Structures are given as C-alpha cells and as structure tokens.
C-alpha cells in the first residue's frame, strides 16, 4: 500500500504537546509513527525541512451550497478550495436547497463527496425540518447516514422550547447542536452591526445584544437539557463572556470564531465605501468585541477557528448594500490571515493556532483526526511560514470571490495538504 515519509519537518501537534523536528511515516491512510530519522523502506519521501507539519486542519463551518445552489459553489469546487487553503476536512452546513434534513440528502452529499470531493466532507443535518423551526428533524436517521451535528445555521432557532427539545433529543445520538445565535426580533432588517459606524452610514444595525441574548439562552438551555451546544461564529464580547461562564460551571458548551471577526471591525464597511464584501451575518463588530473574541481564543473559551465560508455569485453581491447577500468566503484565506495577523504579531502561538484549527474542531464535533498520534487518519497540513501570498480572489478555487481581504499581502501559507495519506494539494503547482 502507499507509504509516505515526511522528512525533517517541524512537527507541531498541540494535542500531544509536540513541537519538534521529526519525521512522520504514513501508511495505508493512517499515521504509523512520528520520530527522529525514520527509515524510508520503500516509502515515497517528501522533504519537509523548513516546513511545519500539523494534524490536518478541520473547518467545522462551511457552506458547500450543493445540492441546490451549484451556481455559488459545488462539493467539487468547495473541497478544492479547502485543500488549497490547507484544510483536510470540512463540515457542510445544511442550508442547501433542499435543506439537509433527511438521511437521503445526507447520503447524496456523501456520495458526491466520495466521487468529486478532494477533502473529507462531514455533513451537518438540520435541527428542524426544512430549518423552519417547527418540528425536529429525524436525528437518528441523520446520525446513521453520517451527520456529525445538527444546525439550522443562518436561521436562528427562535423558539426556546424548540431549542430545548433539540438539545434534549440530540443527546440520544450524542449529536452536538450548533446554533446561529441571533434574536430575530432585534436584528430584523439589519445589514451590519449597530453602532456609531452604522449610524453615520445610515445603515440598519443589529445590536451585539441580539447575539449575546441567544448565547446566554443556549448556555442555560444546554445546562437544563444536559445537551451539547456549539455556538457558531461567536462575534461579541458578551457572547464570549456567556460561554466563559457556562464552561466555568460545567455546561457542555463550545464555540468557534471566524478570521473576519478576529481581524476586522464594522469600520471596514465605512473604509471600503459600502463594499458588499464586508457584509455578513453576524456582522463585523466593534473593536471592543473584536478584542474580546481574540481574548476568548487565547484563554480557551473559544474552541476553534472556523471560516463560515459562504460563497456567493457576483450578482448576489454586486448590488446596493441593503440588497446584497450576507457572507464571505474564507477557506483559501483563513490560514494565511491567522499566521500573518495573529501568530506573527504574537497574539497566538503557532501551537495555539494549530490547535484551534485541528485538535480543537475535532474535539468540538467528535471528529476523527486533529492529531498525529499513531493510528490517526493520515490527514496533514504542511505550512510554509515564510511563503508570501497576495490574496487574489480571481485565482480562488472556490466559485465565490466575495472576500474583504482581496489585495492583502500575507506571510505564511499552506504548502501541502494530505488527506488519507495522499497529497491532494501542493503550493505553486
């Protein structure tokens, strides 16, 4: 069978507190072992000297758009974008057309992923049928078909009763419930964050409280129901605080943050003169919120970095700000942004970042991987900390070009992506 030996790289495996120069041997889709001067013995050798060898990165929040919106993205293009961005696995949000609320749709996604996918695809099922917030979806079937979590992402679960039932029922199948936390009554009609910038731009804002209220609610409901709740794209200081307090008292709550909320504020909407690439939900927040989210990453309140990769067509975005679709693409920029803007200035250590992209997400959704321990899946991300990249949306593998980071010059980038022991992407092809 295929054997691959990665020679002389700096192995960073935070789950096992490893950070050392070593060789990694892969065989039959699994990690065989990590150690000094491993013999090749017929294995194909890849010179990894000067590169960082990490457990494969996992993005728990991706919109692959297939089925239904193949004009925005497909499983093929989305997973190619993931590979190019250094991700070896993505979790696919269920807000497709139709919504992934039955085993049949989950199976269809997995079949397509097997045929055309470049990285692993873990489907997420809907919390409620059609994500309408009225009746629970069939979690038993969804789990059996391969769903790793449930979520009505993009559509907040408005009813506390429904959320409670979901958290309770999901326990039977050990499914985490991922919530897009937003009180719709407070955010109705909003296109950005409420505050001074929105006021001066004359745009309708959603207050930070619209998110934090629901995060608080979900933490309390998870406590009540004993279920696992995962807070998607957490973006406000009060949300971080709610998760932190929940964790402190033992509630099974986890959270993710996106690179755009870590690096940009609502000021970007003004600075870009209403560029619709700065429009997403939750919106870019205040500087105080941005700093609090970063602090949450540093102190472990936030478990992982996820992109909320949300590709749209040019037509969806090339309209008035009020009319533009919400969302940004993230798969092909996340790693470089985090390396250049978080690790280089010392806001996160390299080991912290690698953990937030591998062991963290694996733990949150109980996924295989996230480690280079013997017997783990041979999913690896290799980084070149010195490679300089200029973000050029025209060259994205994703169909989506909607990024606020176009033109940014960044240092540090993925170099090689390995899934199941096979190289699926290599820099500078």
């Amino acid at each position, binding site marked *: 069978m295929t054997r691959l030996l990665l020679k002389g790289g700096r192995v960073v495996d935070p789950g096992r507190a490893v950070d050392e120069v070593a060789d990694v041997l892969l065989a039959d889709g699994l990690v065989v072992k990590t150690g000094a001067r491993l013999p090749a013995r017929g294995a194909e050798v890849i010179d990894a000297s000067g590169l960082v060898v990490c457990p494969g990165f996992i993005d728990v929040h991706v919109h692959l758009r297939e089925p239904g919106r193949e004009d925005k993205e497909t499983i093929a293009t989305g997973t190619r974008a993931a590979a190019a961005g250094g991700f070896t696995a993505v979790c696919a949000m269920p807000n497709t057309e139709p919504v992934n609320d039955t085993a049949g749709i989950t199976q269809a996604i997995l079949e397509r992923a097997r045929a055309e996918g470049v990285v692993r695809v873990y489907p997420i099922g809907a919390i409620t049928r059609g994500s309408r917030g009225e009746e629970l979806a069939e979690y038993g079937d969804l789990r059996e078909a391969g769903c790793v979590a449930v979520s009505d992402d993009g559509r907040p679960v408005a009813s506390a009763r429904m959320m409670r039932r979901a958290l309770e029922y999901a326990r039977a199948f050990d499914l985490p419930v991922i919530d897009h936390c937003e009180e719709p009554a407070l955010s109705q009609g909003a296109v950005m964050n409420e*505050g*001074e*910038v*929105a006021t*001066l731009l*004359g*745009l*309708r804002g959603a207050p930070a409280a619209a998110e934090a209220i629901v995060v608080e609610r979900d933490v309390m409901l998870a406590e009540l129901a004993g279920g696992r709740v995962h807070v998607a794209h957490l973006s406000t200081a009060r949300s971080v605080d709610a998760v932190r307090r929940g964790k402190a008292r033992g509630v099974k709550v986890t959270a993710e943050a996106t690179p755009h909320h870590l690096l940009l504020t609502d000021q970007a909407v003004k600075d870009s003169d209403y560029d619709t690439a700065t429009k997403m939900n939750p919106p870019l927040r205040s500087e105080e919120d941005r700093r609090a989210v970063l602090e949450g990453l540093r102190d472990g309140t936030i478990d992982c970095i996820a992109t909320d990769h949300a590709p749209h067509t040019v*037509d969806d975005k090339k309209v008035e700000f*009020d009319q533009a679709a919400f969302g940004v693409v993230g798969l092909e920029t996340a790693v470089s942004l985090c390396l250049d803007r978080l690790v280089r200035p010392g806001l996160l250590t390299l080991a912290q970042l690698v953990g937030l992209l591998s062991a963290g997400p694996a733990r949150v959704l109980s996924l295989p991987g996230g480690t280079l321990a013997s017997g783990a899946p041979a999913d690896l991300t290799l980084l070149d900390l010195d490679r300089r990249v200029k973000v050029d949306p025209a060259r994205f593998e994703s169909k989506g070009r909607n990024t606020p980071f176009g033109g940014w010059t960044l240092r540090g980038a993925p170099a090689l992506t390995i899934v199941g022991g096979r190289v699926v992407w290599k820099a500078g092809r």
Partner: protein
Amino acid sequence: MLDRPIKKVPALRGKTVVNLFYEASTRTRASFEIAQKVLSADSLSITAATSSVQKGETLLDTARNLEAMNPDMIVIRHSASGAPHFLARHCRSAIVNAGDGAHEHPTQALLDALTLRQKRGRLQGLKVAIVGDVLHSRVARSNAWLLGKMGARVVLCAPPTLMPPGIERLAAVTHRIDEALEGADAVMMLRLQLERMTGGYFPSTREYHLRYGLTEERVRRARKDVLILHPGPMNRGVEIASEVADGPYSVILDQVTNGVAVRMAVLYLLLGGGEAAA
C-alpha cells in the same frame, strides 16, 4: 437668477443630466430639474415606478444602460444608503447624491446652510436645534456634518427610540425639546416618517405631538428672531403646528427657493466650471 425676466443661461449647454429617482420626491426632483433647465443642460428624469425597475432590472444595469447614452451626470435618489457610492464605483459619469436611505442628503444641507447664512449673515456660533426622527433622517446627518463643520452649535433632539446610537459623535443630543429650543437661533423640524413607523418607536402621534411637536408656545423658548426650517414634506399637526409652519419666523419656502440655487451651483461646479470645477 430666478428673479430675472429670462431665467436661462447657457452655462451647461450640450451637457446631459439624468435624474434617476428610486424614491418619491417632489421638491428635490423639481429643484434639480429647474436648476438644469436654467443652466440649459439637457435633462431627463426617470422614476422607479415607470421604469424597467418594475421589470426587475438591477440598479447597476439601469445605470449602465443610461450611461451607454453618454450622459455627463447622474443624479440619484435611492432608499438604500450607499447607492450613490456603489454607482460611483461602477460608472464613468459624475454621480450626485440626491438623498440615499438614512445616510446623507448633501444638497439639502447646503440649501439649509445657505438659508441660515442669508438670514443671519453667518453660521459660526449659531445654535441650531434639529428635532424629530433623527434615526431615519439623512437630512439630520448631513446638516449635523455641515453646520457643525461651519461652526454652528447643533443640538439633536428626539425620543430615545428615534435617536441612533453613536450620533453623539456628530452633535450634542437631548431628549427634551425645551432644552433643545432654549435660546436657539434656528429650529429645523424633521418629518416624522410615518411610513417607517412600524417598529413601535412611540405610542401615538398624539403623544408625539404633545411631547415633541413644535407649537407656538414652545417656539417662545427660542430666540425672538428664531428661524424655523423644515425639509418637507410636513405632517401638519404632528411634528409641527400649522401656526408655526406658516408663521412669521418660518423660512420653509425660502429653503425651497434656495434649493434651486444650490443645485445650480453643484451642477455648474461638477459639469461646467472648466478649470473652476477642479
């Protein structure tokens, strides 16, 4: 100029201007059209209700198609904040903002400033109270910028529900109308945008009038020679009592007259002024 027997000069002869109005407008559109005619520009006005917008054409496509006919300027009024900026990014023609969403209405602020300066000889040091639905008002924002920059002391007044967060950055804020009016040189009343009042911002127009309406009695708190402004259209008996709107200190119609002059200036500077336009 408008008082001359022949109200026409050839300054913009041969220039084409398109007025693209996506929102209802009487004053602003008429004002721009008259300014264009006086300056001899060729102009046409398109309103959303009678255009291909009804057939689902996007703003950008509409603008690009109009541009293919080579106009020199597009004057746009749109309910989406930032729509003029969006067009400016994608079009060659000069774009003039005739009011965008709750963002800005620059020519309105210019005509208000002109009116105040004509009547008072200066803007520096004047206390100007802007009272009403500040939340939805582009007029309030543009005036706060302009009058503040020119040295006037602007006080914004509204119930807290109609006061957007962070507006303190632009001007002083109060929720008491008497405080806003105290010693004011000018009072600018904002239209209560009744069509947007679905959010339960206040209990009734009755209470609004009682607490925030400009009545003759309240006007007495301001200076004796106070000027009363309103960008129109007015809701008589809601934000402003008729006796005030039609009273001796009202300069509401002077505002409208000055609107033509200000728009002529904008058109001339952006289109005709040659070197001066730079």
